């Protein structure tokens, strides 16, 4: 017994810390300031950003996985741009979004500005996730496909999705979770209006920014911030269990 604890003490400690953290949030739920507009605006903005950024990210992942062949200078430039963007602080992306989308392009504080900012944030995450699933696929089927006269675009957009549906959904869900998790990038671009958005040009308060405002700025808002945090943790847990179930279901198909 002592030997087992000695070998895994840090893992047990981490498990206990996680459980105690989650236990902090388990209290009676309160929703006095949260409106349907916040929830709907958050879902539309984050899901829209994932779906729009998926296509260019998938294309660039094809380059990084070696399916699309480019001159070496362009290949290097592509990798450098992705890795630099991955390391950028989200508040810097927020500043870029504020300057370019809200100010220069005149979208103002809106769902569209927040969506475009989130696309910048998601792009490196999705490129990395897609290239991790495309690289082994290319190693296994790339040469065989070439000998059958299948071009790189057909391999990328027809064969890879057909064989790796589950993993692609997994990557998209990871992207959605990432976009739900970021606050700094959207707090400068989405605004703080809580009413129901009627168009994509309307300002909306996203859920994570709402939690921040409840915890820091709204007097007596902490119990509600705690309730929303608990719901978000539960939702993210389902989001991560979901693709595994989807993978199993699609594999059985």
């Amino acid at each position: 017994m002592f030997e087992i604890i000695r070998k895994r003490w840090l893992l047990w400690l981490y498990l206990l810390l996680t459980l105690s953290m989650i236990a902090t949030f388990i209290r009676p739920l309160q929703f006095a300031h949260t409106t349907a507009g916040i929830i709907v605006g958050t879902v539309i903005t984050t899901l829209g950003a994932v779906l729009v950024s998926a296509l260019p990210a998938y294309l660039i992942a094809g380059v990084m996985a070696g399916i699309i062949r480019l001159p070496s200078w362009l290949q290097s430039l592509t990798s450098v741009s992705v890795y630099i963007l991955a390391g950028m602080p989200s508040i810097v992306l927020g500043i870029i979004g504020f300057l370019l989308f809200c100010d220069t392009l005149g979208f103002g504080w809106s769902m569209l500005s927040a969506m475009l900012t989130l696309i910048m944030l998601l792009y490196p995450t999705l490129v990395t996730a897609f290239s991790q699933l495309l690289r082994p696929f290319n190693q296994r089927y790339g040469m065989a496909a070439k000998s059958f006269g299948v071009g790189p675009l057909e391999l990328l957009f027809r064969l890879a999705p057909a064989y790796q549906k589950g993993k692609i959904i997994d990557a998209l869900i990871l992207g959605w979770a990432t976009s739900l998790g970021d606050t700094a990038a959207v707090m400068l671009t989405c605004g703080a209006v809580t009413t129901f958005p009627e168009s994509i040009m309307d300002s909306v308060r996203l859920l994570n920014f709402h939690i921040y405002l409840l915890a820091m700025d709204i007097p007596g808002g902490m119990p509600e911030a705690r309730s929303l945090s608990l719901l978000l943790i539960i939702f993210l847990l389902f989001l991560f269990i979901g693709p595994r179930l989807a993978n199993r279901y699609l594999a059985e198909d």
Partner: protein
Amino acid sequence: MKLIILLLVLILIFLLAYPIINSLEFFESVPLSNWMSFDWLPGQGLYGMMTPLTGSFLLVLITLPLSLFIGWMLSLQLVDNRRNWINPVIVGILEVWISLPSVIIGVWAIIELIPAVRRTFGGTGYSLLATSIGLTIFIVPICTLLFYRSYLSHLDQYQGIENSFQMSALSRSELFIKSQPTAVIGTANYIFCRIFGETMVVLMLSGNSLQIPHTLFQSFRSLTAAIALEMAYAAGMHEKALFAMSSLAIVLILTVLLVQYKRLINV
């Protein structure tokens, strides 16, 4: 196809250069001695960025070794117990924890950590220590998974080396660092960027006093928190100074990333 990809890359480069282009006016009109000073009083024309920058560096100085050490230890235990039931449970928790909004860590820290620091060490509790602990909790899952995946991807090679060097004086960790320097340095680089760039946890726990903390229990303000905090009401040259701050962050992170680019792309 090449044109589309080139266009995508050029758009990215333009986006990163945009804040720098916008802050050129600031750097031209404000002398170097002004913005390199420690006095941040935008109302009086003083734009010293060194106080928040020092706050960010102090935070990195404490959090980076702490996160790397804990992440390293956790990943070693995960590798050792990779056939045990606890492994998938912890890996699953770490994966969810990575995507967890940093505001949730902030909310937890305000409820639990800040009162604990206040009770133990006195003061308000909003301090460099509390921020470092909160940020370490936020960063450790990323760090652990990066190390763990590096271990797994090189496990065969590593196991071989470990077996052949069983009698050597090298420890297991030294062996991994010597065989996989790329993974170790690349992870440290990435974690540096994450800690330097984190905004919400710092904004919620640091207390945001514009001072250089002389002890672990004093409040401070980081560069990213300063941008987030003041952007809401800044105008004119004050706003330009905040753009200049973000340009400073971009240049700093670009330098760190490009110096180790070849190592980083292999992580």
